[in-house]
């Protein structure tokens, strides 16, 4: 492997990539492989496979893969007229939940990798306006993105098999499906009994060795945890090593970007950050790629105010931070007669996509996909804390008996749903709360559209029907309530052809700053059906290709 370069901060590199997550990892690899000098600035640490554990206290309760919430508080409110508050102690996760470190949230994600369907890109044209929302078409089509989905399949590493409703694909999956689990078998049984069409869950997890990485060993500590095998296709495993192998990509960790600064011509010149010792540095660059996710990319632009950009960098449209979408969801839990042993292997092996499209007969916009999985009840502590069906004892001999019987016999079915884009849902700068570096905290304003909640409830009804048809011994619903946060951070720097209603163009270039590209979940125009990352990465491959062409032509 080539030695890692160390670029001087005062000399311009070709690209600075801010954030090394699902999108940033792809950008770092693509741009360095294309021959450019790249500096990646990542606020979190550089953990490797051997640093990951199965420690429920450290990873789940302390959240050691995320930022410390005492140093990096976030605030939440449902509506713009309310005052946002730091969620009370004990409420657990931050409103905008992501992992900080090389690989970003791709390190601890579940790995459900669903392509969008053609309809996702043009629903506004097909369905018409939805009042009070920013419902719009994407400025690109499925057909344009298809080659890049295929690159995600092959270069990131996705296992699967085509399903009956899938969008057309130009190449088969690189590796076969992961072995079916009991939750998948039960979903399949229940769905078939209802005449539905269960299919293999495409997962960003290797079922067979591929690209020099090993297959999954089914350790079971997958969702929420980092993979000790490099079998989960995080960018940490799949992209970063290849970026570093070019000898042109320097990854600086513990470096928190504070703002972007432009020159007299309005071009980004310096990326200002605090290094691992807390010392302010400025990396000079020819172009900047903002891949800090749907919360932090928006915050960074809003923090980068100047005389030329009084409301934040590239925010002439006022759309930076707006149109946040979390993907609505619902969860249904069930117990079965015989052991499932869901503490083994990956989360999901089967999904049901029969309710993907909006059906106007339902009376509301939206659709989604259904998956079966243990959720958090495959972890001993969380199961004991909250896995017992409502109304049953939570301490004493009967509680113990229930734990002994049902730790191995439980599963959940999730409805993963659309969220409508609305300007009132946003990431903004909190006027009072600051982080440890003195930056205004991320303020999340969010209230689901009634159609989002209706979709989630509809999907839950389907889940209940499937679990009943599969012969569940007992089942219960988590009540669908308005979101107070989420791990899908979408829409806050949307792409579009019109500079008045979008932040970046169809190639991710900021409308107002020619050498600034925003490439991450923030670019989404619509939310898709609940698994955004495959599309985030397909967009990243496409963006990198375009940027490479433009840079070579001297057009960046």
């Amino acid at each position, binding site marked *: 492997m080539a030695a890692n370069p160390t670029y001087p901060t005062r000399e311009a590199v070709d690209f600075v990539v801010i954030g090394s997550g699902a999108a940033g990892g792809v950008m770092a690899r693509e741009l360095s492989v294309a021959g450019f000098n790249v500096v990646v600035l990542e606020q979190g640490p550089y953990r490797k496979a051997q640093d990951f554990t*199965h420690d429920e*206290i*450290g990873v*789940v*309760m*302390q*959240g*050691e893969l995320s930022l*410390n*919430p*005492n140093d990096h508080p976030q605030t939440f409110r449902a509506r713009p007229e309310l005052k946002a508050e730091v969620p009370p102690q*004990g409420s*657990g*996760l931050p409103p905008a939940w992501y992992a900080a470190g090389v690989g970003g949230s791709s390190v601890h*994600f579940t790995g459900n990798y669903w392509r969008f369907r053609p309809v996702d890109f043009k629903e506004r044209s097909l369905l018409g306006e939805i009042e009070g929302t920013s419902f719009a078409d994407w400025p690109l089509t499925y057909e344009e993105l298809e080659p890049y989905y295929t690159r995600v399949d092959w270069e990131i590493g996705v296992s699967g*098999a085509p*399903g*009956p409703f899938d969008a057309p694909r130009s190449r088969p999956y690189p590796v076969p499906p992961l*072995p*079916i689990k*009991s*939750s*998948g078998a*039960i979903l399949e*049984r229940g769905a078939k009994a209802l005449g539905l069409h*269960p299919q*293999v869950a495409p997962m960003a997890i290797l079922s067979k060795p591929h690209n020099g990485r090993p297959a999954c*060993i*089914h*350790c079971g500590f997958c969702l*929420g945890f980092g993979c*000790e095998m490099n079998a989960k296709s995080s960018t940490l495993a799949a992209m970063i090593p290849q970026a570093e192998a070019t000898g042109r990509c320097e990854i600086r960790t513990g470096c928190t970007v504070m703002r972007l600064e432009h020159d007299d011509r309005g071009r980004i010149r310096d990326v200002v950050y605090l290094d691992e010792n807390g010392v302010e540095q400025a990396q000079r660059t020819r172009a900047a790629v903002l891949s800090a996710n749907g919360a932090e990319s928006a915050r960074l632009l809003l923090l980068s105010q100047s005389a030329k950009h009084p409301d934040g960098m590239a925010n002439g449209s006022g759309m930076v931070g707006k149109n946040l979408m979390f993907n609505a*969801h619902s*969860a249904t839990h069930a117990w079965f007669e*015989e*052991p*499932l*042993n*869901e503490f083994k*292997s990956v*989360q999901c092996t089967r999904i049901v996509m029969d309710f993907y499209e909006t059906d106007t007969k339902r009376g509301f916009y939206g659709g989604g996909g259904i998956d079966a999985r243990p*959720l958090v*009840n495959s972890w*001993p*502590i969380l199961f*004991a*804390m*909250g896995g017992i069906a409502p109304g049953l004892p*939570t*301490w004493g001999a009967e*509680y*113990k008996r229930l734990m*002994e019987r049902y730790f*191995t016999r439980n599963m959940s079915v*999730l409805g993963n749903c659309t969220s409508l884009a609305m300007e009132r849902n946003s990431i903004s700068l909190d006027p009072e709360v600051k982080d440890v570096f003195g930056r205004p905290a991320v303020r999340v304003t969010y209230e689901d559209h009634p159609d989002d909640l209706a979709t989630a409830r509809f999907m839950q009804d389907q889940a209940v029907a499937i679990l009943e048809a599969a012969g569940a011994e007992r089942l219960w619903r*988590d009540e669908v309530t308005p979101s*107070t*946060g989420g*791990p899908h951070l979408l829409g806050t720097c949307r792409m579009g052809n019109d500079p008045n209603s979008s932040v970046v163009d169809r190639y991710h270039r900021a409308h107002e700053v020619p050498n600034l590209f925003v490439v991450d979940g923030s670019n989404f125009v619509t939310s898709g059906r609940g*698994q955004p990352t495959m599309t985030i990465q397909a967009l990243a491959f496409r963006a990198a290709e375009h940027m490479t062409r433009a840079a070579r032509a001297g057009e960046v």
Partner: protein
Amino acid sequence: MQTDQSRRRFLHTGTGAVSASWLAAQWPLALEAAEHAAEARDKQQPLAHLGPAEAADFEAIAARIVPATDTPGAREVGVIYYMDAAIGGWMAGVEQMLRPALAGLNATVKERFGAEHFHLLDADAQDTLLGEIESGPLFQTLRFMTICGMFALPSYGGNRNQLGWALLGFDPRHVWFPPFGHYDAPHHAQANAPAQSSTDKKHHHGR
């Protein structure tokens, strides 16, 4: 995907006093204290932090939350060593709540049963009292710690010989092979069979 609802619920049922952020603040202390507790548990050494009477009360409460039945309970699994390490280390913040709350409980014990300490009562009396305080912070915090002491990595001080995991049927192996459970077994048997005639070819994808 979404786990936050379930996790939020967990942290709520956990206890008002215990939160992710608060644990985070205590974190550097955790590993050191845990190591000590694990050693104390294995060598059956005295506790490092809790006094004998309060330890006996906490352990008695834990033993009602997860009692010994035909399988070991909280006492047998060594939950008190986890509690000792946690209260003396990464959960130090709860001590301010726990001590006066326990004193309050023991005042009731004295008034109603004429005994000095909760741990001196019989199981029925203990259950009656705990039933009255089960939604309060003392009980909820001890429940949370009992569960952690039962099911966290043994290196945190509890879960002696992985007895907590054994009663769940959880096996901490890293490598598994299909079949994983009862319901997927037939699929794998089928997949391994030499010839497979699927009547449902169109919608049946890959094993």
